């Protein structure tokens, strides 16, 4: 029996200067490709957003990095090593709606689950684990709720609990799937504050995001995805109307007040007022 759940044979080091390095990744469910020939580089220490329309493969990209879906082709390296050897260095915040919040368990229990990977087989969490979990709950402002049954939490509180669970993982690369979906404004501010703090502590964060308007305020790195990678790089260079239009299709061209053909690498950024209408409209498109 292996000591750790994620222990695999050691492989060669490849692109160790990148937090995440993906080569030629293709994932398909049945015959429909969900991700097509993805090449992606995320340098360490950035707070990166992944945006794209519904069905663009954003969640699948995250799951592929975590080894939760089997790619048809391609390689994923995390800090220079094949991702499956590096799961201990990756923290994960799944979409809130993927679990049954009526499950009989408490907030503290859920947060301690983030430590299960470090504990390995059979060993139970003890006092040290409880303390780490309480620290994380403190950071997300949920310490007072530690003994609450999780069914009593609001959406925003659920998200904070998931965030605390990722915090105790003490990872170096964090993958977050729509952490701001369906939470109140206070929680959203709290979450982004926390993500920026993690970045300042040298962590790398890749966040699936849905709100184009808040991109420049929240993130410093941007990945535009629609089955293929449309553009990637520092937000200031990538966040252009031309790129967004290419990602979301023609709808974005219908934006009021935006002259056609603006954009291009390094060109002016699209006005946030105009983009406000873009996300929901583009969302309906596959």
């Amino acid at each position, binding site marked *: 029996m292996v000591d750790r*759940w994620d222990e695999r044979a050691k492989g060669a080091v490849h692109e160790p200067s990148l937090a995440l390095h993906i080569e030629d990744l293709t994932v398909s469910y049945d015959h429909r490709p969900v991700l097509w020939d993805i090449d992606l580089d995320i340098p360490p220490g950035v707070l990166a957003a992944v945006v794209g329309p519904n069905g663009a493969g954003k969640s699948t990209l995250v799951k592929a990095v975590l080894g*939760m879906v089997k790619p048809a082709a391609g390689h994923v390296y995390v800090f220079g090593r094949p991702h499956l050897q590096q799961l201990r260095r990756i923290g994960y915040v799944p979409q809130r709606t993927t679990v049954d919040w009526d499950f009989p*368990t408490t907030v503290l229990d859920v947060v301690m689950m983030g430590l299960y990977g470090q504990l390995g087989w059979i060993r139970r969490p003890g006092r040290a684990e409880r303390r780490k979990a309480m620290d994380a709950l403190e950071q997300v402002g949920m310490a007072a709720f530690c003994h609450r*049954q999780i069914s009593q939490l609001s959406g925003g509180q659920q998200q904070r609990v998931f965030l605390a669970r990722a915090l105790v993982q003490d990872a170096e690369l964090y993958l977050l799937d729509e952490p701001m979906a369906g939470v109140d404004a206070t929680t959203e501010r709290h979450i982004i504050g926390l993500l920026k703090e993690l970045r300042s502590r040298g962590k790398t964060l890749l966040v699936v995001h849905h709100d184009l308007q808040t991109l420049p305020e929240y993130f410093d790195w941007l990945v535009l995805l629609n089955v293929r990678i449309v553009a990637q790089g520092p937000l200031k260079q990538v966040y252009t109307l031309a790129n967004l239009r290419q990602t979301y299709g023609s709808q974005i061209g219908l934006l009021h007040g935006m002259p056609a053909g603006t954009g291009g690498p390094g060109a002016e950024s699209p006005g946030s007022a105009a983009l406000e209408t873009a996300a929901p409209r583009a969302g309906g498109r596959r």
Partner: protein
Amino acid sequence: MPGLEILSDFTVRNALIGASLLGVVSGVLGTFAVLREQSLIGDAVSHAALPGICLGFLIAGTREIWPLALGALAAGAAAALAVLALTRYSRLKPDASLGTVLSTFFAAGTVLLTYIQNRQLPGQAGLDSFLFGQAAAVLPEDLWFMGAVALVALGAVGLFWKEFKLVAFDPGFARSLGLPVALIEAALTAMIALAVVVGLQLVGVVLMVAMVIAPGTAARQWCRRLETTVLLAAGFGAASGILGTMLSLLGRGLATGPLIVLVATGLAVVSLLFAPGRGAAWKAAARRRARAAIEDRHILAGMWQLAQSHGDAAYAVEQGMLDAMYGAGARGALERLERQGLVEPVTHMSEEGLHWRLTPEGRKAAAAEPLSPSPTVRGE
């Protein structure tokens, strides 16, 4: 009716020990099945046990428990795999896959059973008791077998507690930690087959699914943590086993297995209705109480307003007026308020019909009531 001395009876003691073992095992393992929304897999697995039992008998040539249980286990596992495979690789939805597999295996089992019975093979008598179980047929060596299976199953749950818990709650996150989730899910399903095997003798293949679902469902209503849920489910399961067996002793021809199942489902129904915070009846009562409390506050505030507009804090309001303002519920609300000492009926105006006024406590409560309008008239 037999007295307590019957408990020392050999057959009865075997049945009681067997029934409590069965209850504990199915309660513990069933809780995971219920929480993973996999309880019906238990139905397919238990029905599929029948052909396994028959094959075990045909191969071993005896009615001993080990070959039969092994056959049941293998067939149950095959059925569970078939359900998963059908759901994954065909266009059948999970419920249709379950139904198909369940009936196919059970049909095969029935064919084998009638075949064996007609061949008059030695030792085949009573093989059909595995359909609905037969408590009197439980032998000491069966108990050793059931105990061994229980030990293995409960030991596995104890050992891999945190792994099972994580996979039941959030399989996606479990995979992100590198945990072999598919393997653990397979183990959890296989353990349902173990629970079924433990129940074969007593409850039988047809009703066994109830023992997988009911204790966990009942326990889930009362508990906030998985630890307590599983323990309570074990308790409910054991209690059902013991109570059901005792009930069957009350008269001749009362089948033990079905009685155990009835007790277990009875516990589940009571829990679903009355568990605090989650039970349907409990919630309805809480809603009623909340509605009544709001009605009370409205009437209190209304009377306060009337008293103020008349410049008389002890102003007596006619019942009919309150009826007109608050509907037929006003009388009930006034009586509730009277019991709380907040209003009192005014008796000296009885010739003019019933009147009500606020007591001094009522005035205090009404003045503090946010529903009350700000005072327009001062009066005392």
